[in-house]
Structure formats: C-alpha cells, structure tokens
C-alpha cells in the first residue's frame, strides 16, 4: 500500500508540449519493492519528460486529434476508471491514477504487490484508493482559499516539505496536507498524549460551534411527453468547532419541518462515531413513501480543528423552484425565441441576484436582435453569441415573466465558436443563475438547542459546556443560491429536425443557513 511516484502537471493547451511538470516526487524504496513484486512485468517509473508526453497523449490532451491514431482511438481501448496504462518506450506503465481538474493534472503510480501480468483487478490493489486520496489531498491543499497564480506557486513550493511530513516514504500518512503544514508550524509545542493524528493541536479560547448548510438543486426540465423532468437537492453541512480539550464529543441534529422532504444518501465525515441505521439506509434508490425516515438526523462526532464537511445528503423536493419554458423556431435567416419563467409560490421571492444566460451554440456572432420582455433587462454579447436576461431581486407579483424576440446570426467561424455536440439545430438551453438568502429548499435546519457538546478530560467544564457550549450558532444567513435552467433535447430521444425544441432545465441553487 504505497505510491511509487506522484506528479502535478499543468495543462497548457496551445504550447508545444501542451503541459509542464510542476511538481514530481519519486519513492525509491517503493520502487525497489515494485521491482521485486512485479518481477518480469516490472516497468520502471520514467523521467518527467516521457511521462508528461505519454500521459497527455493518453488523456487526449495533446492538441492534435486530426487523424485516427490506433493506440489512442481504437474502439477496444476502453477506460472506465481514472486509471490508465501509459505506453512509454514500448512498455506499458500501469496503473497510473490520473485526473484533470482546474487545468491541473494529478497523477500517481501505486505499488502493486504482485506480478502485473495478468493484471490484477483494480479493486484488489490497495494503493489505488490511497493514490486517489493522496491526489485529492493535494488538490484540496492547492485550491483551498487559493485566488491567483502566485498563491498557487507558493503552495506548490511548499509541497516538497509537506510531503516529507505527510508521505515521507510513499505511504500516505495524512491526506489533509494542511494538517501537515500546521504540524510543521506547531512543532515547538509539546503535544499532549493520545492526540489523534488528524488533530494537530488544541484550541484555546471561547467555545464556539458553527454550522452551515448548503443546498444545490440539480434539475432537468424537458417539458416533453415520455421524458420525465428531474430535480434533486444536494446538501452539504459544514462545521467548525472551536472547543477546548483533546477529544470533545459533539452531537448535531438536523431537523426537517413537518412534511419536509426526507434527507437521503447521507455520507458522513470519518470523525462521526456512530450512525443510526435509518440514516445509513435512507436512500434515493428506494421508492419514496410516507414511512421514510424524516429525522431528526443525529450526528455524534469528535471534531477536527479545521472546518470540515460533516455530511452530504440528497433530497427529492416536490417541485423545482422555478419552472421554465423555452421555444425556438428557425425562420429563414433568423431565430424566433420565446421564454417563460415561473417562480414556485412556496419559494422565497427575495433574490440576491437572478439572471438567465441564453447561449447560442454552433452559430456565428449575433448581428441583429429584436426583443420584448415583460420584466428585467437584456444584455447582448454579440461576439459570444450570448444573451443575459437580468431579472433582479424579485419576480413580479404574478411570479411569471417572459421574453420573446428574434435573433439573426452572422457567418460561423470555427475558431471562435466552441463546438457543442448537444446544441445543434434548434436544440438549445438556457441557464438561470440566482442566489436566495435565508432559505433552504428542503427546509432542513440545525436547531441550536439540539447541539450537545461533551469536552472530555475536564468533566466540570464539559458539564458547563453542555448547555452553553454552542453560544453562537450561525444565524440564518442565506448566502448564495443559483438556479440554472437548462433547455436541451437529448439527441438520443429527439430527432434534430424538430421545429420546436423541447424544454429542459438544469437548476442549481445554493443556500446557506
């Protein structure tokens, strides 16, 4: 269970190599074991240059895909996981765990403790999940709170020292690299006994527990017979517990209002010590009925120092927050579009902002536009072939707004217009962005009186904290909500020659308690 090497590669399309190795680390003692375990099937970890080239080729990130290349495009080369075999110097290096995120490619090669021919099933290679966790850890470290390139460079320069702490010999000790950084800084502090490895120090100060709930709605509205509209809430509960003592025990309960939509698919942070079986089994896979467990959802845990995601959940709310209708007709040289949006009456009509993005793909720039809107203003981005309908803070009393108009396009130039395989002909979509304050779609909330804190070690204080430890719960400050209404037809179901495009919507809304 170890890694032979790890790389960070920035993807730079348009440059000669299409990428640069920003960081790499090799683990020679693991490499030595790999040579013994893999025997005749051993393939050494290559130098950075050849690795970069082979990885970019395999991930299809080189600019050239003009010609059919069998070693990349053959139908039998099927990858169903983010684990690849890289052809380097006629030999195949496997398994290479790799993924691209924010123009950065994260890659590592886990040790396989047996021969590689025949290839063992991935599930039996313990280093694979460790490799993923390692890369996710690096990713979190690089991008948590990072704003610009110079911050990224600073963090990259910290990596060698951090990995000396978190992964000195290729066996990952802690995926939370921030912990290792704090550990280095805390080095002079004598640590108390039986300190958990995931907690680098102790908190001193006023006890405080902050909880925030974030919800997003993912929805597809087709407005089409035979295709069901879907919408699903995805929630994240984030906690920051500033409590004294080494191992304080905290219990947080999430509650729903009467008739609230039950929370499902609950995944918890590893610091949660036990779970009710009803929470474990509540799942969106099952058909919904009234008997579904609807809380309160109790999460007993021992918090780490930093802010962490206590749990994730999903939920099926009865209706999407905004219903949309989008119609498009091709009339000789111009497109006629009609859009109606309706806010559901149960949703709080108080937006921080709300705007609809109406892109036109696979067409030239907008040359002419005539429109009529019942509410809000329209901004035109001619070169980007994009309309933005700014709706503002509130829907009108009727809760319904509409936009109609005709758009004319210029000649299409391939370089500027990105290709979209879905939005061809009269298939299109629009996205709605909005943010509502002080509101959750499920109604889910954390009652501040339900939060219990037991600080271990000093019983007197803990008894005290039991009642007063949660003095400052986050007030209901709703920060962001965003709804994306997406209109599109699915090519699999819809022939392209239809004159009326069917309606679909894709909504996201983020709410914070």
């Amino acid at each position: 269970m170890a890694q032979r090497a790890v790389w960070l590669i920035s993807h730079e399309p348009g440059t000669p190599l299409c990428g640069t190795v920003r960081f790499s680390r090799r683990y020679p003692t693991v490499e030595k074991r790999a040579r013994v375990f893999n025997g005749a099937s051993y393939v050494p970890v290559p130098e950075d240059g050849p690795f970069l080239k082979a990885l970019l080729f395999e991930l299809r990130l080189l600019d050239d895909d003009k010609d059919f290349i069998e070693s990349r495009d053959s139908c039998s080369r099927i990858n169903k996981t983010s684990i690849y075999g890289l052809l380097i110097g006629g030999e195949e290096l496997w398994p290479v765990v790799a993924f691209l995120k924010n123009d950065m490619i994260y890659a590592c090669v886990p040790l396989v403790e047996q021969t590689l021919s025949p290839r063992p099933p991935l599930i039996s290679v313990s280093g694979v999940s460790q490799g993923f966790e390692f890369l996710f850890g690096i990713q979190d470290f690089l991008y948590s709170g990072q704003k610009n390139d110079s911050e990224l460079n600073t963090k990259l320069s910290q990596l060698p020292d951090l990995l000396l702490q978190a992964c000195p010999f290729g066996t990952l000790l802690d995926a939370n690299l921030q912990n290792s950084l704090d550990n280095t800084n805390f080095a002079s502090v004598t640590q108390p006994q039986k300190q958990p490895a995931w907690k680098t120090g102790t908190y001193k100060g006023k006890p405080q527990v902050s909880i925030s709930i974030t919800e997003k709605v993912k929805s597809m509205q087709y407005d089409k017979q035979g295709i069901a509209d879907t919408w699903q809430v995805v929630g994240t509960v984030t906690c920051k517990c500033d409590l004294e003592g080494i191992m304080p025990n905290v219990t947080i309960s999430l509650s729903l209002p009467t008739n609230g939509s039950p929370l499902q698919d609950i995944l918890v942070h590893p610091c949660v010590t036990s779970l009710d079986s009803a929470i474990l089994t509540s799942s969106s896979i099952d058909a919904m009925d009234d008997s579904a467990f609807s809380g309160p959802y109790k999460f007993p845990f021992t918090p780490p120092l930093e802010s962490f995601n206590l749990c994730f959940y999903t939920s099926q709310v009865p209706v999407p927050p905004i219903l949309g209708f989008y119609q498009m007709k091709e009339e000789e040289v111009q497109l006629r579009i009609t859009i109606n949006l309706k806010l559901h009456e149960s949703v709080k009509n108080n937006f921080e902002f709300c705007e609809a993005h109406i892109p036109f793909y696979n067409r030239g720039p907008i040359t002419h536009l005539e429109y009529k809107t019942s509410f809000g203003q329209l901004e035109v981005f001619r070169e980007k072939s994009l309309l933005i309908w700014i709706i503002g803070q509130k829907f009108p009393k009727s809760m319904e707004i509409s936009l109609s108009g005709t758009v004319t396009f210029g000649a299409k130039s391939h370089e500027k217009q990105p290709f979209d395989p879905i939005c061809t002909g009269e298939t299109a979509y629009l996205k709605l962005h909005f943010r509502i304050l002080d509101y959750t779609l499920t109604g889910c909330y954390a009652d501040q009186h339900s939060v219990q804190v037991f600080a271990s070690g000093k019983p007197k204080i803990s008894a005290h904290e039991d009642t007063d430890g949660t003095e400052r719960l986050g007030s209901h400050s709703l920060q962001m909500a965003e709804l994306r209404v997406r209109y599109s037809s699915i090519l699999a179901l819809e022939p392209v020659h239809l004159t009326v495009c069917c309606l679909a919507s894709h909504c996201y809304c983020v709410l914070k308690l």
Partner: protein
Amino acid sequence: MGPLSRDAWAQRLGAFRASPSAFMAGPEGEDLGRDLLSDLRSEKLSEQTKVSLLALSMEYPAQLWPDASAAEVAATSLLDTLVLLPPRPSALRRPLLLAATTALAAGGALGPTSGASCRLLPLLLGLAAGSDPGRGFVPASEQRPLQATACECLRELESCKPGLLGGSLGLLRGLLGQEGPVQPLSLLLALALRNTLVLQFRVGAGLGGLLTDKVSPTGGGPWDWTLVEEGDGRLQPQAPSWPAAEEGEGERSLTAREHSPEEARELRAAVIQLLDTSYLLTPVAQAQLLWLLGWALRGLQGQPPALFKPQLVRLLGTAQLTLLHAVLALKAAFGEALFTAQDEALLLRRLTLAAQHPALPPPTHLFYLHCVLSFPENWPLGPEGEEAAPLLLGPQLCRGLLPSLLHDPMALLARLHLLCLLCAEEEEEEKGQLPSPRHYLEELLAGLRQRAALDGGPRALATLCFQASYLVACCLAGQPTVLTPLIHGLAQLYQARPMLAPHFVDLLDQVDSELREPLKVVLRQMVVSRPGRDEALCWHLQMLAKVADGDAQSATLNFLQAAAAHCTNWDLQQGLLRVCRALLRAGVRGGLVDLLQVLARQLEDPDGRDHARLYYILLAHLAAPKLGVALGPSLAAPALASSLVAENQGFVAALMVQEAPALVRLSVGSHRVKGPLPVLKLQPEALEPIYSLELRFRVEGQLYAPLEAVHVPCLCPGRPARPLLLPLQPRCPAPARLDVHALYTTSTGLTCHAHLPPLFVNFADLFLPFPQPPEGAGLGFFEELWDSCLPEGAESRVWCPLGPQGLEGLVSRHLEPFVVVAQPPTSYCVAIHLPPDSKLLLRLEAALADGVPVALRTDDWAVLPLAGDYLRGLAAAV
C-alpha cells in the same frame, strides 16, 4: 573545490531534476553524490538548502549511489552528519534520518554485515521508544516529531526486509499502550506483527513470547536478524491480491496453524488494542491498518473476524475512498464470516450510492462503480476476475447508474458496461415493462451515433461512439435484438460521415465475426451503391479495401470502374489499387482482369500503372492459393514499414523460394534385386501436407553417375505414400553418401527449399544377381566364374560368425537371391554381380556352430575389404 553556493546548488539540482539520466551522463554527474554528502556539513549553506539536497537524495539514491557499497558509504556519511549536529533544534534531523533509511533500503545495503545498518537500526528503535541516544542528541522540542519519524523509518525498513522487527513486537506494543504517538506506532506494530505471523508460520514456529517481551531486542548487543534470514528476504505483500491469496501459495494454508491458548490470547489482545485506538488515526492510516490486520488474521484459528465488527459500523457511513476500499478488502478476506447476507446487501447499497453521489468527484464515482462490478460476493456465481453485476444488484439499485449522453466519456462507458450486463440478464418475459434496459441502450447508442455524425465534431465523440458499440458487441454477442439495430445504426452513421472509415475499419478488426460479417455486408452494399465520384471517395476506397470480398463482385467492380475515372491523384489511385488487391486476395478473377488492364493503361501516375500491371501479371500467372499468399500480410516486414515496403516484401516472400526446415523425412527401404541396375527404395513421410515435391540427390565423390530427381505430386501426413525408386548407376562398386535436397510447395502456396539429412548407400545395396544358369549347370557356372577371377583379381578367406539362426538362416536372410549352388545346411556357393562390372564369389562350406569359413574371390581387389567387412557384420545385422 569548495562548497557550492546556494544558487549554484539550486541551479545544479534544477538541471538534475530536468533529466537525471542526461545530467548523470554529463561532466558533473560523477561528483554529484560526493559533493552532496560533503556540502551537507558545510557551514556556509543554509538549512533550507541542505534540506533540498537531502530531498534529492531521498528521490534519486540509485542515481547518486548506484551500488550497495556506495549506498553504505553514503548512509554512514549521513549518520555521521546527524551525530555531528549541534545540540539545538534543527530542521535537518528528520530529513537525515529519512535519507539514511532511503539510502540503505533503496541501495540494497541493509543487512547484518552493513555497519551503517547496525548503527541506524538501534538509533531508530531508541528514538521510537522516546529515549534520547545521549548528549542532548534530541532537543526536547523535536522529541515527538523524531519519534514519529523513527517509526516511519522502521516501518519502511520492515517493509523492505520483513521480519526485521520481529523481536521488537513486545516493545512496540508496550509503547503503544503508554505514551507513544498513536499513528506511527500502530502502523509499525501492525506491519511487524503481520510479517512476523507469516514468517513464523512459514518455519512452523509460533509467536512465542514475542508479543509480551518488552526488552529492547538490541539490549546493547547486536541486532537480531534471524527472522529476516528465515524469511529469505522475501517481500510480503501488505495486501495480497484477492484471487492470488485464494489459490497461490495460500496464505490460509500457512496460517491455518493453531496457536497455543496464551499466544492466541495475546495476539487477540494486541489486535484489539490496535483496533480500539484506530479512530485516532487519519482515515488513510486507518485503512492501512485494516488491510494489514485483515489479511494477517485471515484464516487464523482462534481469531474471530468479529473483532472488526465495531469498526465497520463506523466506517460504512463514510464515503472516504480508502476506508470503504478497506471495508471491501475485509469483505474479500472474511466473506460470510464477517458479513451476513444483510450486511452484504447494505455494503452494496452504500457502494451503489457512493458511485453516483453528486457530492463526490467523478474519479471516485468511477472507482466505486468498478468496485460494484468487482464486488467480492459471499457466494459468487460467475467466473473469478471478470466484471459482473453482483446478484444483489437489482434493477432498482441500478436505476441511478444508467448512462446518459451528458456523462463524460469514462462515466458513460462505465455505466454502459453495467447497462449491458443488465441487458444480458434481462429476461424476455419482462417485455411489458417500460422502459426496458434494452430499449434504453438502443436509444443511447443512437444518440452517440448522432453526435459522432455531427460535421466538424471532435474525434473524441466518434471514438466514444465506437467504443460504446464495441462494448455492446462484446457484452451482448449472441443477442440479435441488440446487434441488428446496432449494425443498421452504424451503417447509417457511415452514410452520414464517411470520414469515420478508419474507425469502422478498426471496429471490424476488433469485433467477433458475429458482428463483423453482417456489418461488412451492409457497409459494402452501402459503398458500392454510391456513384464513384463522391467527395468521400478516399474513405469509400479505404472502407472497401476492408469489406470487399468474393461476394457481390459485379457491383464492386462497377463501382471501382466508375471510381477509376475520378482517381486523379496518387492517394486515390493507391486506395483504388488497395481494393483491387483485396479482391485479388479474395479470389475474384473474372471482371478484375479487365479492370486491372484498364488501370494499367489509364492511371496517370506511373507508380499506379506499374502496380496495376503487376497485379494483372500476378492474377494471370498465379493460382488462387499462391496469389492469396503473395498478397497477404507479410510477416517479414516490420509493422511500421510503409504499405509499399510491406507489399514488396510480401511478394518477395511469396514468389521466391524460401529456405525452410524439412517438412519431409526419407528412409531407405529394402533394395530391389531385379534389373540391370541397383535401385534404392525410399520411403517418404511428410510432417505437413506438401505439394509438388521434388527430391534432388547428389552423390558425394562422384562414385555413381548423377542421379535423376524424383517427383511426388502430393504428400500428406498420415496417408501412406508409395515408395520411391531411385536407380543407381555406380561408377565403381562402393558404398556412398547421398546429399538430399527437397523443393516443395506448402499448402499456403509458398515454395520452400529444405536440406534433408544425407542418405547412405550400403555395399549390399549394390548387389545384383548373375543371370540364372540352366538347371543343373549351377556348379559349373560358378566354378567358371571362380576361376576367371584370378590372376587379375584377389582371393581371401574370412571367418563369418554365425548367430543363433545358423548358416541356413543367414543365407536365406541376406544372400538368397545370389545363391548359385546350394547344399543346405552346410555348403553354399554365392555369385554377386557388382555394377558396373565386378563380381564377388563366395564359398560358404563346413559351417561350425559359431561360424563359417568363407572363401571369397573377386576380380576387383578394391572390393575385398568391403566384402570382408560385410561378411563379418552379417551376424550382427539381424
């Protein structure tokens, strides 16, 4: 040279990292390792620079110190540097320990004879135990970090040399119970315990008091290497591959030995101790602990897997990749002993949920999906190692895992695979249900094809469509309800976007004949039904070269004829000729002759005309099988050679005579004693069917006149062949060696030449009888011959030993045709004619029990020694 400055080192390290091999081959390469070690003690360099030097040595020890002795020297130097550090906090202690450990372990120097090892190990163990090796070696502030680092170093050494810490188990356990840092000690103890269990049981020993002995193994004395040596230095997989552990060398059989009750109790206590504090470990470390302990206890008597149960409840709720993976490993290790059917269902449910949870990143989804399809079931039904949908994974669970066009390619393919598995299981009777998986699959594939057909779309979309088609063809072969629409849809895709021809060719190469043959037919029809002047002509020709065969010849030829007029450039002409070539191989002759003649005249490009003419000549002169071979893929040409080179080499291979190992064997049968010349009877035997065999013989030393070649039309193994008669024309009566060459055609049409083992013509093979004298005149005839030999000839007497058959047997066996006068059983007169014109006369009279004296005369003195040898050898030649 003095120490380098910080900048000089930064530059040097940068150059090294850019390409270690190039740097080491350069002028500075040789000194790097030495400079690095010496500059670590330089007072001019900052600690930060030194840490970067140490970091380099931790990554590239093999380049810096390429052999064990260099590694030993380096480790010694690093340890010296460590000892010489002033007694104040320093950032160098940890990296120095790590670097020394790396140098020893990676350089292969770790062992009882290594001085550095014998210094490092007790130092590490002392640090791990929290003690100070003395003289303020460890400043108080560094004590904890160094303790943890020492544990990590020991763990790495134990991984590289299993059994190293076998003697320290009790000590480590004690430390874990007291004040030590939990995570490093837990992981170290778990690994050492696992290795010790495996090694001790391999040699048939128990744990003994290892778990309770709290004395430091060094105790001031030398390190205990016995367990390492017993283990033979073999590495122990920390988490063996599942099927391998099942069969292979059998971890189970190794550990199925019973412990004494005390041993079992101590072992269980140690495991419980480790598991109880496991929540103090980071999630990734918890996962390592579970993998280690799970596989260590698997199959151990008296260690119930239920020990793990309290941990599982806690772990099932998380979606932490390493933790759920570790739970799956426990599942694989213990099966039903740890997971009841309900537990199994719950685990699968959590896994399915995690495979689609919107809060998790896509790579995690994909890995969980792989885990679902490779789920270690309690009672698996299918073959081991193949991805399959677990029995408990019903359609309901899979609902959220169906593929859609909005997924990225990998997610789509992974989910498509699951969908295919569902379709494969789908019962026909479920037709009423809507929408059926098969219906869903069909629509998805149609959508993929529609996207691939988009003009100007990226190649990745086309690739995805063909990968999906291939996956479906593999998983659902034998399901015409799936394959028929697939073929139809692919044909339409080709019609819409012929530039995907290379993808089609690739697909046809990869899939089974079940999809390939009907798809070929449909695609051929589609191509040949077009007018020959299409813009996409080059793609059509590429496609036709793949799908053209003996069927629908006239349509194909018509298309080619129409196309020929539009093949104005070299590319198109080559494409056209490639199709002709495919047709030639398929055995098409009639109309093709005309087409090739036209092409040989009409094509603008001289190379094209030449090729057309060549094909025409080949077609006119070669029989079909030979033509097939001549035009077939050449094995002689390397894969990357251009098609023209491959083609030429193919011709060379097919049309020239090949040197080959002999596929025919020849043996000499009994010779025929009739006629004016001796005739050798040869029995041929073929190892493979061969045709038009020509055997050529050459006599060494020109003892005989040149021999005629022998021709055999056909030889097949297992079918008896008629013997071949080879008349010999000796120029002198002597035995000879015949060189034999065979020239034949194989069933694949190649003409081969082979050198056969030589044949030997014996002296006796040359014997011919004299014409038979009239009845009763035998003796007179013989006497006349006898007298005529002298005086020019020679006379001799030879003792011919007799075997058990006696004289009568000997004569009847070997000399019967040549006997002129016989008075059985005691006296025989034998007259032998030796071509070209010699005679050999024998009188065998007055035989005794063990032999007979033979008087012999010949008119050719050179025959005498041969005759003597022959007679003396007769008894032996049964």
